């Protein structure tokens, strides 16, 4: 399969374009997706190629257009709803949780819900408290949804394409800080299965579980650990619901130690669930309690030094890894 080096942004753009070419029922709706070419330019060129009927600029009405997208899916379409950022999607949670996630069940199996909700999630740089929220913990809690959080351009393309073809509501968590990263992306038909994690770096001493932006953090930590003669395995979850329990357990059974790195807040974060899975099914394989590295348990401050201190970092991951390896005690 031939490859191209693309940014994460262009990989998403390619996935959207290919799926819209493939299936006329697929359309994109959201704020600034058309004339403005997308607040983060993910939809660049799509209005020109597919026209205003399939690339629909909306008013600022997250609850309303999320619901209109869901209704359109009930009517046989395959909507892709872009939230300018997931911070604003909080206004649309009623529709995502009560309409999209439950429609198939409430209707006794009559109404599938092939819809994608996507946009950047979590903190960027100095956007302060209301614009820096990571929602994976909340969204992964809901049965009836699928949740993916690609970390690389290839996974971004492959998971978005799979999401668009899925007959269930799929949440795609992107990242403003990811849009510019480059990587090899297979041309054309490249599908990444939803629910499958991937080992992004092999290792034997400790497993670093991560996803989305924390992959970079974990990989940097793994390099620093290598210099300290610690072999860290980096497991990128990629999907958060369903979550790849076998992959998590397989890695931990090999390394007997784990650190979970996540972007969100610690209390009832996605990492707590990963910990639960590990201690429940790999209890006897664990040589140390699983450690978590998360965002500080505070709203995000504006000041850049405070913000940096609030975020998960390679240094924090290295320290946690050394703790589970009892290297400093």
């Amino acid at each position, binding site marked *: 399969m031939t490859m191209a080096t693309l940014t994460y942004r262009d990989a998403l753009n390619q996935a959207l374009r290919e799926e819209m070419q493939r299936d006329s029922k697929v359309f994109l709706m959201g704020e600034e997706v058309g004339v403005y070419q997308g607040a983060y330019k993910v939809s660049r060129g799509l209005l020109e190629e597919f026209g205003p009927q399939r690339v629909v600029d909306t008013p600022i009405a997250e609850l309303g257009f999320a619901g*209109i997208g869901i209704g359109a899916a009930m*009517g046989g379409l395959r909507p892709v709803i872009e939230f300018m950022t997931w911070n604003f999607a909080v206004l649309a949670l009623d529709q995502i949780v009560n309409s999209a996630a439950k429609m198939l*069940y*409430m209707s*006794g199996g*009559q109404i*599938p819900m092939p819809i994608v909700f996507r946009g950047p999630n979590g903190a960027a740089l100095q956007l302060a408290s209301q614009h820096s929220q990571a929602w994976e913990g909340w969204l992964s809690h809901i049965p009836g949804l699928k949740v993916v959080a690609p970390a690389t351009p290839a996974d971004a393309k492959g998971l978005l394409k799979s999401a668009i073809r899925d007959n269930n509501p799929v949440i795609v968590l992107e990242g403003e800080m990811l849009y510019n990263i480059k990587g090899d992306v297979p041309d054309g038909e490249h599908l990444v299965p939803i629910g499958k994690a991937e080992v992004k770096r092999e290792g034997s001493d400790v497993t670093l579980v991560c996803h989305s932006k924390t992959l970079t953090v974990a990989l940097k930590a793994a390099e620093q650990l290598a210099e300290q003669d610690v072999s860290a395995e980096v497991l990128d979850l990629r999907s958060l619901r369903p979550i790849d329990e076998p992959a998590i357990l397989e890695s931990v059974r090999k390394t007997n130690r784990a650190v979970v790195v996540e972007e969100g807040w610690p209390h009832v974060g996605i990492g707590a669930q990963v910990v639960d899975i590990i201690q429940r099914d790999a209890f006897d394989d664990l040589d140390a309690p699983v450690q978590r590295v998360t965002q500080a348990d505070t709203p995000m401050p504006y000041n850049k030094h405070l913000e940096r201190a609030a975020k998960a970092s390679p240094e924090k991951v290295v320290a946690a890894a050394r703790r589970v390896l009892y290297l400093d005690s």
Partner: protein
Amino acid sequence: MTATARSPKDTAQAELHLKMLRQMLLVRRFEEKAAEAYALGKIGGFCHLYIGQEAVAVGALSALREDDYVICSYREHGQAILKGITPGAVMAELFGKATGCSKGKGGSMHLFDVNRGFMGGHGIVGGHVPLAAGLAFASKYQGQDKVCVCFFGEAAVNIGAFHETLNMASVWKLPVIFLCENNRYGMGTAFERVAAVTDIVEHACSYDMAAELVDGMNALTVYEATRRAVERARKQSHPTLLEVRTYRYMGHSMSDPLHGVYRTKDEVEEQKARDPITHLAAKLKEEGVIDQAALDAMDAEVHTEVEEAVKFADESPDPEPDELYTDVLAE
């Protein structure tokens, strides 16, 4: 005056009116039975009856094509039956049985039949209003000429989703009809206590939308108004806001008092004097379209139909235990 004296047009109209009368009776008797069944513990949870409002659904749905969409709030037993779900399948759903129109998983508030264009049964006030616009969006997008009628109560006008949706439906010219059943109360709250403007049609101005104020105690006026709105939606793809003034005889749901402290017994009695069934029956008698004997026969027939629905629901099995885990995700 006898039937033979009537022109084909009159006959067609007479038949339509008789059909509407029978439909109102059917819904009325169905709801009465549901109330009985609830009292017997055969129905659980919330159960919102439609008694008093029959003319609205009957009039509106008479103006629709079979393949048009209807979507409702939780007060939707009547619309479900009128859209073609058998009373048995609806009653079975209220009983939580496997033969229910939602396999016993949805219950009273979540009746569905996608093959008949009945898109539910929704429990969050205002939550289904955007869904209605989305269904209309899908119809227009696919070049179908289906329209969507969205039934909701007047209290939903105070919630944001209603406004966000009306604006988009108008900007995008969607073939949707927002049919507000103004029965004066949201649970125990009189609309004038929580709304700055009580004429709901007023809101249409803010969205450059066609609107009509309709007498909801008269099935024929509802039918005519809805026909005009359907025409506008199907031919010009323009949305309409219909405010239909009606009244709920029973409590908000089976768990609420009949009239309660928020309205007087007298008010309820006054309204019952405007009963849509009595009203249409009288009119048709006067026109010689029906006589008391035929009316009694019709009522008896409807009674049997509802009895059979209950029997069907009673005798139907509960869902298999593993149904708990099915329909969470589609293939």
